């Protein structure tokens, strides 16, 4: 005899096909075990239905209060879609200041660059190289022919204008002077 445990819940719900329903009924008629289990399922289903149907229902004032909250959230979402995000807003606020700073800095930079930019010439002195100590040595000339100054030279210029020489960082060792005799 094959028991029908796996069909009992669906039988209680009435979701079985006609054939399966007939099978459960026929089997329960002759099987005390499955008959008892069927009664158990029906009893449990009735209790659950009853207990869960008595779950608390919200009160009217709660329902209205929730609706106000939901509406407020909807409006927040709608406003956030229409309004730029805080980051966008901050960038927009800073944009004039950035542009002003750019307008002020750019000409100054260009003037500095123009002041120190080497004119197209055949000879470029090492004066544009800050690392060389030119105070005690004659300038070593680099012949570049008729070429325009290279990017490296220009980069060196910018570096020279932006940095300040520090004592002790010079690669050229200081001349050793013997201490005076006591």
């Amino acid at each position: 005899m094959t028991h029908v445990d796996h069909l009992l819940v669906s039988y209680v719900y009435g979701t079985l096909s006609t054939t399966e329903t007939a099978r459960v009924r026929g089997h329960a008629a002759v099987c005390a075990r499955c008959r008892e289990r069927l009664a158990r399922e029906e009893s449990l289903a009735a209790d659950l239905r009853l207990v869960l149907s008595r779950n608390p229902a919200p009160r009217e004032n709660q329902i209205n209060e929730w609706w106000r909250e939901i509406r407020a959230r909807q409006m927040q979402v709608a406003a956030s879609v229409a309004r730029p995000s805080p980051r966008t807003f901050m960038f927009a606020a800073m944009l004039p200041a950035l542009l002003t700073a750019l307008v002020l800095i750019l000409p100054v930079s260009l003037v500095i660059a123009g002041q120190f930019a080497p004119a197209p010439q055949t000879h470029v002195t090492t004066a544009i190289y800050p690392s060389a100590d030119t105070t005690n040595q004659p300038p070593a000339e680099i012949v570049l022919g008729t070429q325009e100054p290279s990017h490296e030279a220009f980069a060196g210029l910018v570096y020279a204008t932006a940095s300040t020489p520090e004592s002790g960082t010079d690669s050229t060792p200081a001349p050793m002077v013997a201490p005076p005799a006591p």
Partner: protein
Amino acid sequence: MDSHSQEAVHNLIAQAQQGDQTACAALYQQHVRPVYRLAYGVLLDEQDAQEVVQDSFAYAFVSLRRFDPSRSAFKTWLYTITMSRCRNKRRRKWFPTVNLADIAEWLPGHDPHPERVVQQQGVRDTVLGALRELTPKLREAIVLRYFDGLSFKEMAEVLGCPQKTAESRVRLAHDHLYKRLADQRDALLEGAFGHDAR
């Protein structure tokens, strides 16, 4: 739901999708009670259920444009959102609790037999206690099946699982509940609620 009321719901949804707040309010009024009861049944906590209701409707109305009535019923779609919010809530709050004062509040206050009220409360506590011991998936299945009589097909849609899985979960939950309630079986059968439903 008959075809007339179905058509009315479809009209409301179409209007709500166009941003009609009156239609949104009508949809809310139609569904807020079952959604609350579903959330409460799964979470067994009044405060959490209230928050889930608000989250669910707020999300549903914002996402309403994406809802396709040809693919699922509005109720099922809303329950799916609610179930998802319940799961999120449960993850944040590992141990659900029930306020006993609330349970007493749900019981009918006009019952002329106080001993019957006490008995009902005992049965209710027992059943709720057994429900609380179910795994979340089994409890979801039981609540969906019993609080609103969803079919296995609808349950599968809401739970995001095959129909056979939904059936299997209900069966497993029944087995667990029966074992858990076996001690109180006599009291249950004697009919603390009067057993008019039995």
